[in-house]
């Protein structure tokens, strides 16, 4: 029963919304279902928050390894809740000046706004900025010419890297001073244009043709995979997400 009911709900909701996609009368049912989901998700936030605090309180009380981090988490958690809920530093709404809590909770200059602007935003930006270093280390590993494929990858990456910077334009700037009769020629009837070989132009071609073709092939596979997975779930063939075989 514990798993049959969720399964039935998933199957019925899935099929109804699938069919609703093709029937104009029911076109908004998907949005309604999304609203239901949002309400459920808000309720589940209490579950998640409670779990977070429980685990960190246990870690602090047991003075387990790295319990200091847990203490910081607990202080920040409750500090943010108290400052946010009390609307610390928020001025009353101009329409309701007699009600101290009527202002917007993220009003510029308020406590929660300060936490967001001066703590969350810089910390998030810091994490995002670290990506640049991770890209460098990952590229260093990926571009080692171990075999033919890796060598091709290295060459392509080199062209795209140079082509996306001024270096790519600068390296082939001398071609502008060469007469067109020299840069345009043919080998066995195949026309060759050296201008098209400039790294910045080659980059555009690499991104537009081979890269797009590869991405689309993956995207088509993903789309079919989504259809197959959805059908497995809707038909009740795959129940492993509910913990069933």
């Amino acid at each position, binding site marked *: 029963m514990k798993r049959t009911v969720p399964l039935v709900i998933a199957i019925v909701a899935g099929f109804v919304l699938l069919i609703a996609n*093709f029937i104009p009368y029911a076109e908004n049912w998907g949005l309604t279902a999304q609203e239901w989901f949002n309400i459920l998700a808000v309720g589940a936030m209490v579950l998640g928050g409670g779990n977070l605090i429980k685990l960190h309180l246990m870690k602090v009380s047991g003075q387990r390894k790295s319990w200091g981090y847990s203490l910081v988490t607990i202080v920040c958690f409750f500090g943010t809740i108290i400052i946010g809920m009390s609307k610390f530093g928020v001025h009353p709404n101009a329409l309701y000046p007699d009600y101290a809590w009527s202002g917007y909770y993220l009003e510029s200059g308020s406590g929660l706004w300060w936490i967001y602007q001066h703590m969350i935003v810089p910390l998030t930006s810091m994490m995002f900025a670290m990506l640049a270093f991770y890209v460098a280390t990952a590229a260093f590993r990926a571009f080692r010419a171990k075999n033919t494929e890796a060598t091709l990858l290295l060459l392509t990456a080199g062209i795209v890297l140079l082509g996306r910077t001024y270096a790519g334009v600068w390296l082939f700037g001398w071609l502008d001073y060469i007469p067109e009769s020299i840069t345009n020629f043919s080998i066995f009837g195949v026309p060759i244009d050296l201008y098209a070989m400039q790294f910045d132009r080659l980059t555009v071609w690499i991104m537009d043709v081979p890269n797009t073709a590869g991405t689309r092939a993956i995207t088509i596979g993903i789309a079919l995979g989504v259809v197959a997975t959805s059908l497995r779930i809707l038909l009740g063939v795959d129940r492993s997400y509910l913990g069933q075989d």
Partner: protein
Amino acid sequence: MKIRTPFLTVFASFAIAIVASAQTATPEPEPAPAPAPPTDLVVADTPDDAGNSVEVDWQLSGTDIFSPLNTDAKDTDPEQIVAVYQVERKVADGNGDVVSEEESNWRQVSESGAGESHWTDRSVKRGWTYDYRVCAVDNQGDESTWCDAQASVSPTMQMFNMSKAWLAIWMILFGAFIVYFINHARSGKKLWVRKIAGLEAIDEAVGRATEMGRPVLFVAGIQDINEIQTLAGLTVLSRVAKTAAEYGAQIEVPTCRSLVMAAARETVEAAYLAAGAPDSYQPDRIHYLTDEQFAFVAGVTGYMVREEPAACIYMGGFYAESLILAETGNHIGAIQVAGTAMPSQLPFFVASCDYTLIGEEFFAASAYLSGDPLQIGSLKGQDYGKFLSVLVLVIGIFFATLGSWTATDDSDGIGTGALNYIKNNILGSEGFGSFGGGNTDIEGDDS
């Protein structure tokens, strides 16, 4: 006195002359010319909708400088230049309902900017009949004469969205393939599925973690439970948890969404139960961190650096955090298996992980790992769907190539009509339509 009298006379004469001349020099100002009216107002029921909108189209005014028909735009009288178009509407018939006086009279329902010749009225009621008219207004507020619609319009509901007819056919075909092969497998026929190295490696990764006495880290992406990638990730989690339970390894599942945590707990608990080790299940190891993307990744990477899990498995929807997670895992020397359907994140996983499930492999993981013939049957059906897609692609490439070879300055090439039909109808959103019609723009179309 003798001097003052002629002076006054002369002064008075001058004054009269000046006033008279002023009156003759500045005649009564003529009213500013009104802008030219828009023309050919056409209103039509929006196709394939629930009868709750009407399409309103008109030809731009002759004094609209954005009109392509206004070839001498720079010579347009500045006082006549159109600023906006006002659309008015009134109810002609309420289909038996009570219609308010306000609705029965002309009232403005839209104000479109200069150069705009289309507006969709989404405030109509199904079954009612409406009249429309439109006028141009210049910057001085002068209105042109009204252009009335040639006919009234009554929005109606369509039972089926014909613009998605081909999509429905595709879905039915794919569904039929999958259902057929599921039944085929049910009858006991053995189906062959190629080996997926990344999934074979999961047992190896969990085994390694067991030998090293370190935990297995599983991250089911950062999306919520209503996303198919998260569900696909949870199905893999089920198998990983079962293997971990059988081997006696510990599994750690930090989640980015509360509902995913609840679902993951159910999944892992059931897997431990199925493996005959319900006592080893530790619910606190499946825990919620935060909804914030980079705060989540900070929490997970912090755990990775402190606890050094022997195996890291990432299965789900990931964004920019994918590389941070995978590179940290690489740094601590963990064996890493990743799977996602985010094309932009796949290169990062490929560069940093030992095994990566690319796109469809990720969705096939559950069926593959289960070994259940019914689920493997669905994979076979998926392959036939892929074959059909490739067939349409090859036909499209054939017609596109033929068209480009045979096109001349005066005419489209052979097969252009078929190509457009494939693009706009079969793969687009124009429904069955008519063969050879639709948009003929091929270049730059990324659809």
